[in-house]
């Protein structure tokens, strides 16, 4: 699920950096995915909330906050999304996006295993 998104994002930025893919196309393909990613993430957290998994929700809160912050700082644009083709090629922004992608990937992976562990733990205890 989310892992997939993060991987997709990293691949895309890497393409942008190394390959000569047109930033406009790339941004057009990435931008629509940003909101769904956030939505899925929030949806999982709602589920956790519903299951009274407070610890898990707590772990995820920073990321939600970060997402909200990031989206509120997005460049002026009419469509949804975060990435602006005219600024994305700036080395700072590009590397920042790459790092963000890796960070999210790590986070999603860890939480995936954590959820798995919790699930098995719960199953075993019952």
């Amino acid at each position, binding site marked *: 699920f989310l892992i997939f998104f993060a991987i997709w994002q990293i691949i895309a930025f890497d393409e942008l950096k190394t390959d*000569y893919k047109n930033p*406009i196309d790339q941004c057009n393909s990435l931008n629509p995915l940003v909101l769904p990613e956030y939505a899925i993430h929030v949806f999982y957290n709602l589920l956790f909330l519903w299951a009274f998994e407070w610890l898990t929700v707590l772990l995820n809160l920073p990321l939600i906050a970060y997402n909200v912050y990031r989206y509120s700082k997005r460049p*002026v644009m*009419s469509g949804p999304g975060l990435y602006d*083709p*005219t600024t994305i*090629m*700036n*080395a700072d922004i590009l590397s920042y996006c790459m790092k963000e992608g890796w960070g999210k990937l790590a986070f999603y992976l860890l939480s995936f295993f954590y959820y798995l562990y919790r699930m098995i733990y719960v199953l075993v205890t019952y």
Partner: protein
Amino acid sequence: MAQSNPYYQNSAQSGGYQYGTQPNVAGPPPQGYNMKDQYRGNQPPMTAPNYPPSTVNGYNNYPQRGYSPNTQPPPQPGYSPNTQPPPQNTMNGPPVSAGYYSNTYPKSAPNPAMPPYSQSQFTPPKSNSPLPNAPQRNSPQPQPNVSNGPHAPSRPPPSMGTSYSSAPPPNVHQNPYQTGTAGYPSNIGPTSHAPPPNVPQSFPNQTSQHGHSLPPPPLPGQQLSAPPSAQPAPPPLPGQQYVPPNPLAAPPLPQPSGAPQAPMTQPPQTNAYQFNGPPPTGSSINRQPGPQPQYPGSLPQPNQQPLSHAMGRMNLSEAERPINLMQEKRLLPPHKHVETPLRFETTADQGMLVPPNRKNCNPSVFCPTLKAVPHTQNLLGKVKLPFGLIIHPFKDLSSLPVISAGTIVRCKRCRTYINPFVSFLQERKWRCNMCFMVNDTAEEFLHHPVTKTYGEPHTRPECTNSTIEFIAPQEYMLRPPQPAVYLFLMDVSHSAIESGYLQIVCDSLLDHLDHMPGDGRTRIGFLTYNGTVHFYRLSEGLSQPQMIIVSDIDDVFIPTPENLLVNLRESKSLVQDLLHQLPLLHTVDAEGEIDTYSALGAALEVGKKLIGASGGRVTVFQQAIPSIGPGMLKKREDPNARAGEQSTTALNPSTDYYKKLALDCSAQQVAIDFFFFNSQYIDIATLSCASRFSAGDMHYYPSLHTVHNPVEAERLGRDLERYLSRKIGFESVMRIRCTKGLAIHTFHGNFFVRSTDLLSLANINPDAGYAVNLSIEDPLTDLSAVCFQAALLYTTSKGERRIRVHTLCIPVVKTPAEVFNSVDCVAVISLLSKMAVDRSVTASVSDAREALMNAMVDPLKSYKETLPQGMTTAGVYVPKSLRLLPLYIQCLLKHRAFRTGISTRLDDRVFAMINFKMQPALYQMLDLHPDLYRVDDLNDEGVITVSGREIPQPHILPLTAESLSQSGAFLLDCGWKMYLLVGRQTSQSFIKDVLDYPQFSNIEEPLSSIPELENPLSEMFHSFVDWLQENRPHHAPISVIRDDSRDRHLVLSRLIQDRTESSMSMQEFLMNLQQKLT
């Protein structure tokens, strides 16, 4: 003087190539060179007077400025070539190399005599004899220099093939200059550095300074760096300061001379000597005075570098001695004057590298901020200076080698074009200087097209010219070259018509229809819009143009498929007809109801559709804020907040409509150029996106009105003249390559970045400037030099596909001191201003101001750390290359773009920022730091001759009210405008002979034209003003301002060294700086 002059010339030419010069090889001076050359070669140690200058020259590569008056008649050979334009376009432009740059440099005789005012200025310092101490401080040699010197030479050439150092040796001995010209095979046209217009201001003092400078042998690094800086970099302040004192001190000459000489012989030694500095320093200072007299003429150029070397640090300000500061101020300008002639053609190529054929491209085309690259990011971080390139890729060059080759030789891996800095391992192998891949040389390339020799690939024009143009074969076209297509969009809303701009534009167009670049396929079209969009059908059958009005602006369509865009040649009479009628069609009274709307968005959209298929240029004349239809904008400016901190959001676009439009346009090779004439807020911040991302051009005429504001109207007319007739390149892309290890961090300018090193430019015009920030990703430790190549692929207006390639090579250094000695202050300021604009937009203006301050303080701080103990007691020490940094930073802080506390219209501010981003550095500097001249006493002193006209060379005065007086007339050249301030007691002869008024009280205002009268004074005045005008791409209208006029503030507000209510004076600023440094 005369003697000295020769030196200058040399220096100018020299463009010290080899940075890696080996120490004294006494080479026979090249033929062309006069005694000067010999000097260098021999460098007789003791010949104190002459020799010092020579050395100095060697150091400085100030190609441009150096033009000291050449009293000596024989221009060196190098020059002559220049005059003759190399054959362009010839298939194999052979030695095309001959200077690109026109060498119209007048040789002016040096001015021995100082201008009256100058004297006065100087005198004060003298009185303060105490200064001698100051010199001592300076004296301690900058360690850095020392290190530089030795390192560069000593460094073994890196493994890479490029061994700069080795090659030159013979020449080396001689001055770099010589090598440049003479050393090369005839093929290489010595790029002549055109003899710079002489430096008029040779003050004795300066000369003394030179003396200082003498000691340092030309260090390679420095040389490299020097050239670029030379132009821009104005006079070394510090040196000047010193100077005055020195003369007084009248120290023993011999010591200094001896010292310098030694260095000359062996560069490293010299350095050492410098280190030792302390003892010598004191003495050195003194010495200078002695030598001065000898070289008076030569002064200016030498000053810069030598000082830096020798003195390393100058004491800019000392709290205890305000006098010093004063001196600085005054001294600065004069130098600058010399250096800043905007005519860039003068700038000679700087020959840098060893191999006989290597020379860098014109620094005004391609200029690094640091003329020596720190070898690691770490070192760069320590130095805290911005590292980047300032590029002016499509600059009009007076001569440019054009090559039409079947195949263009490029590196197989990185696709770098072959250039003078590659190395040939053998005849058949060459190593790329960017990625170090070894390539095979094509059989075809072994033939020299001109000399018909075989097996000497390195003598081909591609390998001897660092600026070259190729005619591109088929592979470089994605589609057949497009024709030139021009579309004009004119705002005819009520207020726009009222301003009367339409008449000016139509008249200009009528006058220049024939001069618009293009061929038989050129097409042209017109649209006007207010609340609706009007099309003009120009079909052949019609006897007169037919206007079609589309009122559905939310979904604009093209009313008829054809004849809206017509072939200029075939339908010329109709077009002319239309242009005659347009102003009549849209008049204030013509329409029953007043239409105040402006549907710019709709017009642009339809314009894009109209020419999208072919690409081309859309020119928009916009007067009112777009208020209807797509892309409508709201007023965001809060008039009450003009003086204070404007919100950052107002500097950012309010909608991305124009940005998206621009991206679409860019993809279709359409560029949008804007002319703004607003008298009220129109949100340039948002509209400019349309130009910014489609590589367009923007012009701004605040409150233009044919009646109420004739000055702007004149400016528009003249700018249009240039705009319509200048060269233009279509569907272009520019790629900037750099040596492995360097990476491009950020681009500045108007374009769309398509990949990490590729800019897509729908149009390219000769007045567009770009810049990049660079970062060092991998250490460059094992390299001796790095290269940059900017390749611009474009379609000419004649439908020819061409590639213009500029290559630059600069050395790598390992110590901060070396870096500090090779800074190009103007380039740094230009880059800083661009970065500050970015900061303003992303953070806030006050953030940007802070960042600018830090950008000044941090390097000076780290510079201080490189100084030996004991020198750092009091005062602000800056490397010579950075001596103007504080002044320019202050200019920036007081500039419209970044100032606070003064009411600034948002549009003015935004446009000033845009200008910083898109102007080439040299045009930008006048806007930043205007030149002030006294013109009521023009005389023959230091006259230079340009194309047969004699041009007086008044001194540049410091920008302070102290420079003004009631009894003089002063010309303030602000880049975009000039002001002539006439003092109340200006001599009658000036008022009468130049202004044609009987006396002061009769002068009427506003007066924006000055009659050409037939008397010497008037002729001299006009030739001076015309010369200033020629040095820039746009026209600067001149307005006469009476001393008692209420417009006086226009001039006074530009005197940036003075205190104002909300800003510090230069002195306070320096004191503030000093505090921060301690």
